[in-house]
Structures are given as C-alpha cells and as structure tokens.
C-alpha cells in the first residue's frame, strides 16, 4: 500500500485572501491526500512547527500579499533548522515568475501562478514525493 501523501496548506503573514488556499486544499483531498489546513495568519515558525508535528511530505504556502520572497525564505530557513530539508516546499499566489525562479534556485520547489489547473499541482506533488521517498534515509 502506498502511503498517503500529507500536505500542510497555510497562509503566512497578514494576507487575508484564502479562497485559493481552500480550493487547493479541497482539490488535494479529492486527489486522495491528507491535507492539514492551518488557515490564515501563520508565522513561519508556526508553519514549520506544524509541519514537523504532522510529519508532512509537502508544505504549500499561499501568498497574495507581495511578501512572498521574505516569507518563503523564512520558511525555508526554519525548515532547515528543524531538520525538514527533505520536505517539499511549494505554493502559489501572486508571485512574479522571476521571483519564482529566484526561490527555486534557493531550494524551493515549483511555484504555481493564478489559474494553474489543480491537476498540474497534484501531478507535481505526486512525482516529487515519490522521488523523495525512494531516496529517503531514516
């Protein structure tokens, strides 16, 4: 039996636009994943703490506030500090492609702009998690 994929979906910072995050959370659930939805106003520390306790395969951040560079970088730093280096960090929102490229170069996963079909995200997560699991050392 292939283990369930566990995904944390969070909105860091002051951003209040949660419709996208909720749609993604439901789409991932309908794709058979277990989604821990932590909602609005999460600090990077809260997000990574939750990711650790829930032993998620994926952290998905939704950012529409413009503060994505800072927030993604904070989360990545916290992930490293907490030993969550093998967890996939992905997400979306209002993020310019150049910033997406910059973050990816720093170790973040693919990021998805508005209007991306949820099937793209689901496919990406499944592939990434499968390859990370096969390479995992306990």
């Amino acid at each position, binding site marked *: *039996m292939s*283990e369930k994929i566990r995904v944390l979906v969070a909105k860091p910072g002051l951003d209040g636009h949660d419709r996208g995050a909720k749609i993604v959370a439901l789409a991932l659930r309908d794709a*058979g994943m277990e989604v821990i939805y932590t909602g609005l106003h999460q600090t990077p520390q809260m997000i990574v703490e*939750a990711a650790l*306790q829930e032993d998620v395969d994926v952290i998905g951040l939704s950012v529409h506030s413009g503060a994505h560079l800072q927030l993604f970088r904070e989360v990545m730093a916290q992930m490293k500090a907490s030993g969550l280096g093998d967890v996939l960090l992905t997400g979306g929102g209002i993020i310019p492609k150049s910033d997406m490229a910059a973050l990816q170069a720093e170790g973040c996963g693919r990021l998805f702009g508005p209007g991306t079909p949820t099937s793209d995200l689901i496919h990406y997560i499944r592939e990434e998690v499968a390859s990370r699991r096969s390479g995992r050392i*306990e």
Partner: protein
Amino acid sequence: MSLTLAERLLSGDRRALSRALTLVENRQPGYEELLRKLAQKVGQARRIGITGPPGVGKSTLATALACEWRRLGESVGVLAIDPSSRATGGALLGDRIRMAALSGDPKAFIRSAACREGTGAIADASGDLLDVLDAAGFSRLILETVGAGQSEGRVRDQVDIVLVVLGPGAGDGVQAMKAGILEIADFWVINKCDDPAAERVLSDLMNVLSISKGEDVLKERVRLVSASTGHGIPDLVQQIERLGSSSEFATNPAAEVEGRMVRRVLAIAASELASALQSEEALRERVRSATMGLVSAKTVALEVLSSAVLRLKASEGVKK
C-alpha cells in the same frame, strides 16, 4: 533503524516522535518492533477522549482543556481524528486550525490523523498512536474524534475518561443521538453555554439521562462550559482530575494497560484471519457453501483459522 528511532523518541526528540507516529499509523516495516521497544514506557499518561457531533466545538474545547492542563504544569499530547472520504481516500484535517493557542509550546504536541475506516485500512491505529504519545512522556493525552460510525465504542476502550460534548446548533438535538454515545460518557459537556439555545440542550439531556442516572450523578457529571470564553473550564478539569484519581476508578494501571494489549492482540489476530479469507478462493467457496446450509459457519471459521496458522508458519519459514 527502529532501535535508533525509539531511543531518540524517548530522549525527547520531537522529530523522532513525529516520524514514529507516521511509521505506526501506516504500519510500515519496523512498526511492531518500535511499539515493543516503547511498551514499558506506556501507561503513565492520563487519557481523555472528546467525542460528539460535528460543529459542537470539540477542537475548541480540547484546546481550552489543554491550556488549563498546561497552566497546571502538565504536558499535553493531542490526537485529533477527522473522517476520510470513502470515495477518494483523502481527508481535510481541520482541527489544528482551532488550536493556535498551543503553538510554540514545547510541552504540547498536536497530531492530526484521518480515520481511514472503510477506505481499505484494516485496523484502527489510534490506540497505537496514543501509546506512542504516552511513551514520549506527555502526562495528559486528548483523543478528539467525531461521534459517528463505530468510533464511539473505540473511544471508550482507548481512553480513561470520556467527554461527550453537546451544544446548540449541532444537528437534531439530544433525542437524535444514539443511546450508545450518551451511555459511554463520564462527563456530558454542554458547550457554548453563553448561547441561550444551550438551555434547551441541557433540559433535553437531563430528560434523557434522568431515566437511568441519579440526581447527584447528573449534578456532578453534566457540565456547562464555554470553550471560547473559558467559562467552566477550570472546574471541568478539576472534576476530571478528581475522577481520574478516585478509588472508583482504575486503581490498577497495569490492568488497564493489559486490557488494551488484549484488544490490540485480538485486532491483529482478526486482521490475519481476514487476510487468509480474502486471499484464498477455496475458503471463499466454503463461505458460499455455508450460505447454502451445506456446512456450518463454525466449521468454515475453524478452517480459516487453520489456514491462517499455516500461512504464518510458511512465511516464517521463508524468513529463516
């Protein structure tokens, strides 16, 4: 591998605890060995179950109780169970969103789990998950689960004290609740007591319970609270602690632990038997014969038992 994980868990490594919970929940290779290594440390935590219909405020109540226990110096582990979708096998685990008050607290730990019942998972792992949190050293464990399906009876078996939570606006009211759910409670907690509709819930509940319970029991065990404002929470925790320490309760923790182990052993045996039956066409043919009255169900049951034993012996032979 499991040896190192167990040692790290027992030394307070929270990442190890989290990984161990995953290993056990998914029944991954090594999980039985891990549970065996943790067994001696299991039994020191007091376990409280919170169940009730959706929307009644269980997560908010769990958080309020956890915060009060923290205030009293206890460490708290929370296992929050949400249902899985039978159609897709996925789940939206939304209890954690209400537990922000516990974030950043090194003596609190929250784990969300999907109830994988009916999605192909054989046995309910929540008892084992509680054992892992118990071994990790939390003094109070809260199991939060929806009161639907077969889960109520299991809650009763897995915890020391059961809180059945009721409240205004949670469906058809007390009368619609199955008698079984109300019966398992040590405490009946009416949440959202600041809402005037809570009065109705209280009187409905009293009507149902007064048939079988005395007035003094009801006075002690029916509690009005507001989890969001904190009203009635310190009182409720005090009552839970009193009950937990009282002589009327299990004075023999070893017996409790042994009882749980008996249930776990039987559950594993049951799943071995189910596997044997599922994988052998010959046995299923026998089942069909039983439906036609050609052979008794008991005879077929004993054949399934023999088959399961043979399969186990064969697989052990392969290992050696």
